[in-house]
C-alpha cells in the first residue's frame, strides 16, 4: 500500500491530506507534528492572546477528523532529516519512517536575532505556536509592561493584543516605518498613528542589543544605550522557513524549499507547501516565500492532489494581507512600493487624511501588480482578481479607485467560473 508522509499538521499539511483523501481513499497517510496539539487556527493566536477568542475555538478541525479520514497523526515528533536515496525520514529519537511520497509542510519559526544578548531567558517569546501563546498568557497577570521587538505583522498583532490586556506596550522598530514588508510609508504612518492614539508607544530607528534581567526580564537595552523597563519581551523579527531537515540532502533551497508548478521539490516524490515553500510569485515575477495562511491552503491542495495523481498546476502565489487595528482596516496586495523598481511602474492613488482613507494601485504595462487599501477595503477582492488574472486594466483604470467600483465593472474580464447575469 502506498504510504504518504506529511511533515506538518497545520494549514498546508491538512489541506494536502484532505485533498489526497478526496481522490485516494486507501493509501496510508501519516501526519507528523513537532507540536503537541491537533491542528489549530494559528492565525487566531493573537486574538487568543488578546482574550478575544477562547481556547475552544482554536481547533481547526473536529475531534473526529483524523480518525474519520484515516489519518495517522503522530504528535511531538520532530523530523531531523530527510534521506531521499532511502525514501525515509529520520526523527529526533533516531527512528525512521519510510515513504512513497513526502510532503514537507514544516512551516516557519520566529527569527531570534543573533546580535541581541539575553534572548534565551524566561519571559522572551516569539508568537508562533499555541504553546507560545499559552506561555505568554500565563505570565500576563505578573506583567505590567511589554517590549515588542519589530513592527512586522506578528509584532504589531501582539502589540495590539497585549494593549487590549491593559499592558503598557512599547514597540522598538529598526526601520523608519512599521510593516515595511507590506506597506508604503504613508499607509504605515496611518497604521502607526492609529496604534499610538490607542496608547501603544513606538521607538523608531532603534534596535535592542540586550534583554536585561536574569531569572526575570527587567527591560531591554537599545543601541542608543537607553534602557526601557519591561517584564515581557516579544520578538517579532520575521520568520524563517523550517528547512533544516533537508540541509544535508540534495533538495534545492533558497529562502524556502524550491518547488515547481506541482509543488514538487528538486527531488521527485518530495513536495513542499506552505510557509516552508518557495514558489513563483505572480507579482514580482520571480520565486519567493509567501508565508500566509490562504496560500498554505492553496499550495497544500495542489500538492496533495498531485501526490494522489491529479495534474492541476499552480500558477504561483503573491503577497497579500488583511489586518485591522482599533477599527482601521488595511489590505496589502502584491507589490506595495515602487521605490527601487528597475522598470517603469505607474501609481494611482487617492488620499483623504481626515477620513484616514488611502488607496494606492500599482500598474505595470497596463496591468495591476499591487495595491494598498487603508480605511476602505471593499473593492480589495476585485483588485486581487484583476492582479491574479493579469487583466489589462488600461481601458477602465479611471474606475478602479471609485468608491462604488464593483464587480459589474470587471464582469467577464477575470475568468471567474460562477455565472451571475443573464
Amino acid at each position: 500500500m502506498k504510504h504518504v508522509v506529511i511533515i506538518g499538521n497545520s494549514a498546508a499539511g491538512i489541506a494536502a491530506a484532505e485533498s489526497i483523501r478526496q481522490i485516494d481513499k486507501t493509501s496510508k497517510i501519516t501526519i507528523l507534528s513537532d507540536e503537541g496539539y491537533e491542528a489549530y487556527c494559528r492565525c487566531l493566536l493573537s486574538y487568543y492572546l488578546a482574550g478575544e477568542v477562547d481556547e475552544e475555538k482554536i481547533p481547526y478541525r473536529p475531534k473526529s477528523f483524523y480518525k474519520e479520514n484515516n489519518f495517522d497523526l503522530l504528535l511531538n515528533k520532530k523530523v531531523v532529516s530527510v534521506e531521499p536515496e532511502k525514501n525515509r525520514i529520520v526523527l529526533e529519537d533516531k527512528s525512521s519512517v519510510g515513504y512513497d511520497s513526502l510532503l514537507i509542510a514544516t512551516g516557519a519559526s520566529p527569527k531570534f536575532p543573533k546580535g541581541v544578548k539575553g534572548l534565551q531567558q524566561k519571559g522572551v517569546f516569539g508568537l508562533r505556536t499555541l504553546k507560545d501563546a499559552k506561555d505568554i498568557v500565563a505570565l500576563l497577570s505578573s506583567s505590567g509592561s511589554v517590549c515588542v521587538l519589530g513592527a512586522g505583522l506578528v509584532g504589531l498583532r501582539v502589540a495590539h493584543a497585549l494593549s487590549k490586556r491593559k499592558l503598557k506596550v512599547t514597540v522598538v522598530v529598526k526601520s523608519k516605518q512599521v510593516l515595511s514588508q507590506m506597506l508604503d510609508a504613508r499607509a504605515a504612518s496611518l497604521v502607526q498613528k492609529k496604534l499610538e492614539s490607542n496608547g501603544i508607544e513606538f521607538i523608531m530607528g532603534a534596535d535592542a542589543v540586550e534583554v536585561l534581567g536574569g531569572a526575570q526580564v527587567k527591560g531591554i537595552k537599545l543601541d542608543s544605550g537607553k534602557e526601557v523597563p519591561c517584564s515581557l519581551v516579544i520578538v517579532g523579527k520575521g520568520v524563517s522557513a523550517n528547512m533544516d531537515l533537508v540541509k544535508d540532502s540534495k533538495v534545492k533551497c533558497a529562502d524556502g524549499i524550491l518547488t515547481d508548478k506541482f509543488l514538487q521539490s528538486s527531488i521527485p516524490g518530495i513536495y513542499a507547501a506552505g510557509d516552508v515553500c518557495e514558489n513563483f510569485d505572480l507579482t514580482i515575477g520571480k520565486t519567493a516565500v509567501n508565508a500566509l495562511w490562504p496560500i498554505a491552503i492553496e499550495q497544500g491542495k495542489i500538492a496533495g492532489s498531485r501526490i494522489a495523481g491529479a495534474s492541476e498546476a499552480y500558477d504561483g502565489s503573491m503577497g497579500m494581507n488583511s489586518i485591522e487595528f482599533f477599527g482601521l482596516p488595511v489590505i496589502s496586495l502584491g507589490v506595495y512600493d515602487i521605490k527601487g523598481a528597475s522598470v517603469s511602474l505607474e501609481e494611482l492613488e487617492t488620499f483623504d487624511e481626515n477620513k484616514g482613507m488611502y488607496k494606492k494601485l500599482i500598474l505595470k504595462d497596463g496591468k495591476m501588480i499591487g495595491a494598498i487599501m487603508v480605511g476602505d477595503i471593499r473593492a480589495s477582492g476585485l483588485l486581487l482578481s484583476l492582479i491574479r488574472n493579469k487583466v489589462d486594466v488600461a481601458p477602465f483604470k479611471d474606475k478602479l479607485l471609485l468608491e462604488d467600483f464593483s464587480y459589474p465593472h470587471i464582469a467577464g474580464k477575470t475568468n471567474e467560473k460562477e455565472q451571475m447575469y443573464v
Partner: protein
Amino acid sequence: MKNLYYVVKKCVGCKTCELACAVAHSESDDLSKALKEKRVARPLVRVYGVSGKDYPVTCRHCKDPKCVAACMAKALTRDVKTGMVLHDEDRCVGCWMCVMVCPYGAIRPNHKIKLPLRCDRCKDKDQPACVKACPTKAILWEEEPEPKK
C-alpha cells in the same frame, strides 16, 4: 441546486431587493421595527449602476470558494450537501480575509459589528426575500445550469 441570477435588462436599479433583504435579515422581519433594532440589519445584496445599467451583486456560493480557503478562523465552511457557503458568527473574528479574496466583491465588511455581510440565500425561508420583492422580476431563483465542459 438553486442559485440567484439577475436579468440585467430588467433591472431598473430601484434597490427594492436591498430593502427587502435588510428587512428579511432583521430580527423583527418588519421594516418599521427593523430600523430601531440594536443591530440594524444591512442589505446583503447590493445594486451597482455601471455605464447606465444596473447590476445586483451577491455571493455566488462558489463550488471552490476562495473565502472558505482563506478563512483562518474556520468560520466559513461549504456544506457539500446543500452547496451553500455557511458562516459561523461565533467563530468569526472579523479579519476580512474573505473580503480580500472574494473575486466578486460580494462580501462587504460591517465594521460596526465586525462581521462580513454576505448573501445567505435566506436559508431559513422558502425563497430569498429579494426574489419575492423585485417588482420587475429581474431576479431569478433557479436551478444552476450544468457546468460547461
